[in-house]
């Protein structure tokens, strides 16, 4: 798989992509905005038939980073889509209408990080016990000077 050609084609198709980076052997990271996410998800999942792997989410200094991981099994490349959400507005459209399987991981991220997935078919508590306090998100960090 000619990765340079692939990146060029992707940039042509979606000119507003923020950045594309080959982070490692056969690992590509594409940084997009909230609005572009459904378009590229549709392209990768439906048109190119990439396999949905999982969504990982992290509370970083600059915001909540949500990364959607897909696999192009024919070439062995793992393609990841990274979206950054502001700390004071952690909301994003649910990708469940496009990728059915994403339903559960979005519920999990709602529980552990407090990110809101808009128009999610079943935005109920998933992982944490009913007795767990509503506003406590175990994977949120309290950033102070010198923290990572």
């Amino acid at each position, binding site marked *: 798989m000619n990765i340079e050609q692939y990146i060029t084609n992707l940039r042509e198709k979606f000119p507003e992509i923020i950045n594309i980076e080959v*982070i490692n*052997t056969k690992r590509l990271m594409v940084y997009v905005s909230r609005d572009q996410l459904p378009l590229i998800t549709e392209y990768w999942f439906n048109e190119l038939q990439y396999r949905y*792997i*999982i969504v*990982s989410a992290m509370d970083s200094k600059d915001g909540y980073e949500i990364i959607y991981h897909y696999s192009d099994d024919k070439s062995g490349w793992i393609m990841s889509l990274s979206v950054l959400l502001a700390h004071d507005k952690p909301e994003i459209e649910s990708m469940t209408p496009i990728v059915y399987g994403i339903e559960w*991981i979005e519920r999990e991220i709602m529980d552990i990080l407090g990110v809101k997935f808009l128009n999610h078919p079943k935005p109920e508590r998933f992982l*944490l016990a009913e007795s767990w306090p509503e506003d406590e998100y175990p*994977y949120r960090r309290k950033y102070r000077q010198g923290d990572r």
Partner: protein
Amino acid sequence: MGKKTIVPIGPYHPLLEEPEFFKLYCDGETVVDMEWETGYNHRGIEKICESKTFEQVFYVVERICGICSTSHPFAYANAVESIGGVQIPVRAKLIRSIVGELERIHSHLLWVGLAGHFLGYNTVFMWAWKYREPVLDMFEIITGNRNSYAMFTIGGVRRDIDEAKASQLLQVLDDVKRKTDLLTGAVMDDPVIHARLKGVGTLTAKDIHDFGAVGPTARASGVDIDVRRDDPYAAYDMVDWKVITTTEGDVFAKAKIRLLETYESISIIRQCLELLKKEKPGEIKTKVKDIPAGIGIGHAEAPRGEVFHYVKSDGSNSPVRHKIRAPSYNCITTFRRSCIGGTISDAAIATAAVDPCYCCTERMVQAIDYKTGKRIMNATDIIKLSQKKTEELKAKM
């Protein structure tokens, strides 16, 4: 193999009465909807990993699931070593593959036993688990423990396999092959098993795609994916083996694939042991000073499918973020397609077909009448129903 007399000796499976994981909503005998309640096992492992060093994380992740005890360290090692561009010695690659394939053998035999129990073939359960024992003994000889092997380290493996262990392993493999032949014959040729498993819990290739299902669940529906071939790691591109697929997508297909994969695993181990003779003994680890900042994405093919680890490092001693995805997470969601429309008596075997972690399979299913919302059956009842259906089929044949 002639007909066997099955002596029902009671519900072997340790079944938990209350915390039901799966709720099957039923209208009469038919399952109309399904919901999964989870979080019982949620131990906050990803967060725990952030407070451990990269090396210590191995011992945490191998306890995510006891059956896939090698696969998680495998994927994690692939992730972390890719951050630092660490090249591991060939001997370490071979040993990693050997342990990984031994795990596949023991896991598939375990599954055959469980499936046998759900169908009411308790003899199959006893045999399969008895034939597993020599494999667990080999684990103990090679790694020091029957489960939770602690074999992996950053840069290689922790213990070597010497000539004596290698020859013992070869003998065990011969034995396992013979026993697998017996099991395969008993399972694959039995007309009652055909009747119980064919056409049950069928998933199409589109279902697999929609949910991102992996492993034998996917391969049974004609989706030709296997991390060992698609993105090779360890010694999988140094040996000859094939990916087993079929197209029917039902439980029988999944059972067939697991049994055939056992033979492939035996072959892979034999080839690895041959190659091991050419490598200098003792060179099992590359020295790694520290892991630089960066992102590592690693995956490995566990017996159940792809295990995925995402590790973010900032150059310190511990991961900043570690995201773990076990294969069952994506495979279990397919129950919506495989169970709905079927009967309750088929639900036990259809859910077992994706081989969710044993612990998950156990305390799970309950059947709820979808009109009244009342529970009509618990897990024990559902398994008994499944076993009863087998008895009825046998009487007819």
